[in-house]
């Protein structure tokens, strides 16, 4: 008899730390379960898996996952993880961040981790709001979204992480939602197989703060509306499309990336989910670095 869920809980999580501090119905538990399953389906030894997190509701995840876990300072998780990956290139390093953690205070580290193409699996849980501090605007708060620092609705343009990741040179970008748990697990599993920086943006729900302030209903209503607000894309079937980039520097990554925003469908207001782009032939920075060291040693010998 296969007790899949309790197996995940026993083998990959720390039951003694439960129940979690997350609000009832928070999608973070689902994300955590998907990460654990992805590690399981990839057949990884959990002693060789590290989870690095920053500050925020998402940051708490590293406390519940039974890997080598590191709960760092606000926004700096990619930088801590870069150090770890360079020291232990064989280790699978998962970085979990929230939208404020990764894109606001940690924007610099995220951009440069993508630029270096260091072999991290970044899971960015995007709920459009700062949860732990009580519902302030985040870089992904949509225009018109009410928050505790924009009571009459935000007017700021939200961050387009997808185009930034493409321009910065990430190897893999996928978007998943917490209502499609099987797809979420599969995308994380796939991201973990990428050599280089792989980012999975997970659209999640903060029904307690953002949902309440914007009258979006409870957890299940918010999750069900993700169904209507997103559409499945397949990058293999789609041709390269009109990204806002027209310019290229020499050797720019903007050209070889296959993108999901296809011509003719980009008027669709629904956010694409699935694999958005994947750079072929990408190689992790740490493995390139150690290969270089070996080459130098051979040259000396």
């Amino acid at each position, binding site marked *: 008899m296969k007790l899949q869920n309790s197996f995940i809980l026993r083998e990959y999580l720390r039951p003694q730390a439960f129940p979690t501090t997350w609000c009832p119905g928070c999608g973070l538990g689902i994300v955590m379960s998907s990460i654990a399953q992805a590690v399981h389906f990839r057949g990884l030894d959990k002693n060789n898996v590290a989870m690095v997190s920053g500050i925020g509701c998402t940051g708490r995840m590293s406390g519940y996952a039974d890997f080598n876990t590191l709960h760092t300072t606000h926004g700096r998780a990619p930088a801590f993880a870069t150090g770890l990956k360079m020291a232990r290139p064989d280790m699978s390093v998962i970085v979990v961040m929230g939208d*404020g953690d990764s894109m606001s205070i940690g924007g610099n580290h995220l951009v440069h981790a993508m630029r270096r193409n260091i072999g991290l699996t970044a899971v960015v849980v995007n709920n459009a709001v700062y949860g732990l501090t009580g519902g*302030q605007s985040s870089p992904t708060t949509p225009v018109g979204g009410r928050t505790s620092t924009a009571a009459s609705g935000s007017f700021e343009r939200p961050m387009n992480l997808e185009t930034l990741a493409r321009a910065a040179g990430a190897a893999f970008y996928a978007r998943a939602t917490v209502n499609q748990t099987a797809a979420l697990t599969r995308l994380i599993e796939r991201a973990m197989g990428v050599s280089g920086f792989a980012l999975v943006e997970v659209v999640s729900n903060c029904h307690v703060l953002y949902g309440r302030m914007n009258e979006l209903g409870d957890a299940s209503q918010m999750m069900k509306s993700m169904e209507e607000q997103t559409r499945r894309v397949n990058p293999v079937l789609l041709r390269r499309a009109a990204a806002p980039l027209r310019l290229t520097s020499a050797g720019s990554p903007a050209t070889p990336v296959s993108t999901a925003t296809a011509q003719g469908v980009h008027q669709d207001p629904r956010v694409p989910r699935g694999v958005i782009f994947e750079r072929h032939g990408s190689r992790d920075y740490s493995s390139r670095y150690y290969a270089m060291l070996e080459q130098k040693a051979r040259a000396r010998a």
Partner: protein
Amino acid sequence: MHGNEAAAEGAIAAGCRFYAGYPITPSTEIAEILSGRLPEVGGVFIQMEDEIASMAAIIGASLGGLKSATATSGPGFSLMQENLGFAVASEIPCVVINVQRVGPSTGLPTKAAQGDVMQARWGTHGDHPIIVLVPSSVQEAYVLTVRAFNLAEKFRTPVIVLMDAIVAQLKEKVELPDTPQVVNRPLPAESPEAYKPFAFTEGGVAPLAPFGREYRYHVTGLLHDEHGFPTEDAEVVSRWWRHMTSKIDAHLDEILQWEEALLDDAEIALVAYGGTARAAAHAVTLARAQGTRAGLFKPLTIWPFPEKAMRELAGRVERIIVPEMNLGQIRLEVERLAGGRAAVEGVNRADGLAITPEQILAAIMKVSRLAA
């Protein structure tokens, strides 16, 4: 009204028209309140990408002529130090409100502490004077925030309001002045050609002209001459230092504030500030009820420290007890100033719980038995 609300309203009353910040417990309410209040008075609220940027933005706004402020807590205050040093060196008035929580690092985000006392003094690199005010009640959170803006404008320096989560989250009744006294930035009297934006004066500052059409000048974090141009000339640099230190030292009477209670006949003095001063005040009444002559010295300006008053106090009482929610940061300063004339002892905790009047009373009783 709670302490964060009082600080936010104090900022508005003092004429603050620009706020840049980043959410951090337990200071976030200040940002939330100002995000609603500033647009009402035609001011600007912006939530920046991090605390580094918040500090930089308030410097820019201040150079543009707006009174500006940011609020944060320990981890964010650490990030601000680089640009706080810039504001000190280039003499930009601005106000930083730091609602202290338990550290180091993420520490205990929702719990109160007073661990940033030395960081507020020495957090940024190099030597520099700085003004740090410490409110112990919601009323003082309002009054001292107004005062912080006034001192910042008057002495062209960043001023830090060092709150703790006890005062920030405490809700109490306040009696606010209808129109607080507000210092506004004077325009230079001289012509743009004669204007020296960083004039070296003995104990004064040049008026800071807002960047604009007539007054063009150079602002730099490098050590500079009176026109603002970088210099490595040791003679100019030493004059710059004299200017920087004397602008504060010559006005200590105006900058320093403290309150004394029942110290006239006291044998034991409590030196307490911030949220801890409330428990100390209560402990004094409890001790007096038991016949022990205790009194309270409560600094409202903690940097520069009221050195002269402390030296006098150490000559008057037999023992000094310093309760603090840290491991003894101000106790060091008190010990230094007491110079052995009065025995100094601390009541310390940094575990997120407030110091209770009983704890302080126990310390008073212990030393009074020793004295007897």
